[in-house]
């Protein structure tokens, strides 16, 4: 029951915001907008979604430095609910790795 993994590529909406937790750990937040063509029932279809990304810790802070709105990235990580309010199950992607597309393709 430990499986929880999502890899998603997309475009960053709005410049990522960073703050530090009280003990000084950096927390970067941004929204990832995804759009692609996927296979379903042997046919092609469009897939579109948006998800909040949260990147915590020094390593991810480094790799998200310089990211701006419009940048294309691939984020891998796990999903949790965004808050613990009853009946609300908005999901949020906790990044474990962030890759820039310009770095991947070139």
């Amino acid at each position: 029951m430990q499986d929880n993994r999502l890899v998603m590529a997309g475009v960053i909406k709005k410049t990522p915001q960073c703050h530090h937790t009280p003990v000084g750990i950096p927390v970067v937040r941004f929204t990832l907008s995804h759009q692609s063509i996927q296979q379903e029932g042997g046919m092609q279809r469009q897939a579109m979604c948006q998800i909040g990304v949260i990147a915590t810790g020094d390593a991810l802070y480094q790799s998200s430095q310089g990211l701006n709105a419009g940048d294309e990235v691939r984020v891998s990580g796990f999903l949790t609910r965004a808050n613990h309010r009853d009946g609300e199950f908005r999901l949020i992607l906790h990044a474990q790795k962030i890759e820039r597309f310009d770095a991947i393709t070139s």
Partner: protein
Amino acid sequence: MSSAILRIAVPSPLRRLFDYLPPPQMSAPALPGQRFLLPFGRGRCVGILMEVAEHSELPLEKLRPALRQLDPQPLFDEGMMALLRWASDYYHHPPGEVFAAALPVLLRQERPAQVGGIRCWALTETGKATSDESFGRAHKQRQLQRLLLQHGRLTAVQLNELSEGWRTPMKRLVAQGLVCEQELPCLALRSDESDQPPPLNPAQQRAVDAIDAARDGFNTLLLEGVTGSGKTEVYLQAIARVLAAGRQVLVLVPEIGLTPQLYQRFTRRFDCPIALLHSGLNDNERLCAWSMARSGEARIVIGTRSAVFTPLPEPGLIVVDEEHDASLKQQEGFRYSGRDLAVVRARREGIPLVLGSATPSLETLANTQAGRYQLSHLPERAGEATPPNLRLIDVRQQPLQDGLSPPLLQAMRHHLERGGQVLLFLNRRGFAPTLLCHECGWVSHCSRCDAHHTYYARQGRLRCHHCDSEQRLPPQCPDCGSLDLIPVGQGTERLEQALQEQFGAAGVVRIDRDSTRRKGAMDTMLAAIHRQEYRVLIGTQMLAKGHHFPDVTLVGIVDADQGLFSQDFRASERMAQMIVQVAGRAGRAGRSGEVLIQTHAPDHPLLRRLVEEDYRAFAMAALDERREAEMPPYSHLALIRAEAVAQAEPMAFLSLLQQTIRQLPHAGVFVLGPVPALMERRAGRYRAQLLLQSAQRAPLHQLLRALLQQMEGMKEARKIRWSLDVDPLELY
């Protein structure tokens, strides 16, 4: 004489006196007010002789002889003895503990009641004659010699300020016979500067004359002067007349924080020994000040609440400054009101009493209305100062930046540009009052109290303001493991940080209990404020009382809502006093002052009355409410508190007391409760209370007397921590 019985007040929780036989040897006749060293239980203790009786209710062979007579003369005269007996009776507190509370700590021990003396150093004749060169390479010794030449003699406290590491070179100087150690005869140190009394305005003059006219008998005067109206000057000039008539003066002030400033004004004005008594002194210094007052050497005694017990051979006037202040009430052990005891003392001594305040307590105002106290009013600010202009800022739906609204920020910029100082008042220490998990909503709670932890950013710690426990900041939420912990709410530290970014160039300083913990820190900061090195001042109530900052032109009250919705019936009174006192820091010199009050309840009647009318208008309305609700000053309260580690015990014990009360005559006394305290758990103990309320004092006190007698035999009462508070100020 051999059969005489000494009836002695022994510091113990038992509400009675103890009989002893005289000690084997006595150097002087036994007189009430002397201390005796006694065998008590398996140990020994110091007690005060209350009376010499001929018979004891106990058989003679059961009595033990006292060990030693400690004082040849009584420490308290008859008047003081009577006052203390009265206090023990009124507050229903064990006489031994009352008398012990009235003595300096050293006299509660076996110490002789002698002036101890403060150690100081002075040059001998040889030392004075020693030339600079002869010290050779002993630079430190040369420096000390020069200092002593300059100042005559210096105490350790003075030397600490003037020279670092002076002790070793000083020892050498003593060994060489160049310096001698002396005992300073405990005299208050005088100020080198002196000032002349300024002319009084007509209202001040009338007040001084009224106090003067009352000189020959008991009279209580309420000196109600708006902030900045020059109440202190009235005290000073009234005191001058009392001193001139050869009498002593006792001045009670609420907090030590205020005494240095007041003390300075007194030493500059009066060329007479002044004794200072407060909790910041060490035991020796306290004994010194107390002895000087008792011998009549000190003509003026300035002190916090316990100074009301200082013996004075020639009392002529008592002044209680800021008489509304809650710190005049002792909140633990022997719970007395310094102000109320001052009234009783003045009546017993037949001397006038002046109660001064800009925001008199409702009790005092009711007494004035009833004609028991005489009113002297100072309606205007002294000199050219004009009253500050108060305005409410409705912060509902305003974008708050670190708790500050755009109009307040704009006003701050405006006043700073014109060279004024700005004072922001926020009665909440720390960075934020709450640390919250943004994901799951977990809140950091104290494990021993029903309270949140306060978050301190600079130290990275969580601290409980109720039990002082502390812990490191958790790196992640203990419940869900999220790292996203966020501080919620504004504390002074956060405000300081935010203002540092915006107004750093103007100099930002924070004055609260945390930033002034180090000895002398407060004085250093105040001095820097006066030099205009800081122009943005952030403070808690520490900054609100009594200080005189001539250049403050804007006062911002960051959060006026704290006191509006409390369950304590005195909360609104305290809130109003606080607002008026803080507002009074604005515009005290020539410049006019502005006061902005941020609130979410701009229509609250309390705030409206304060802003549109004045404190008097608020107080009159509040008195009407109290009358209708039959709360003090229109009724009398006594509160029995109980606390224990087990949750059920305090309530069970108080229920038992309530049943006991039902069986005693209790006509006219309402018994309310028992109920758990507003904050039920504190420092790991559960607390509950039983409130007794009565329209008349007599039935309440009769009931208390009977109840306490019953409780002596109650085994439950010995197993639980309980206390009685007569005229409580805090219902927890």
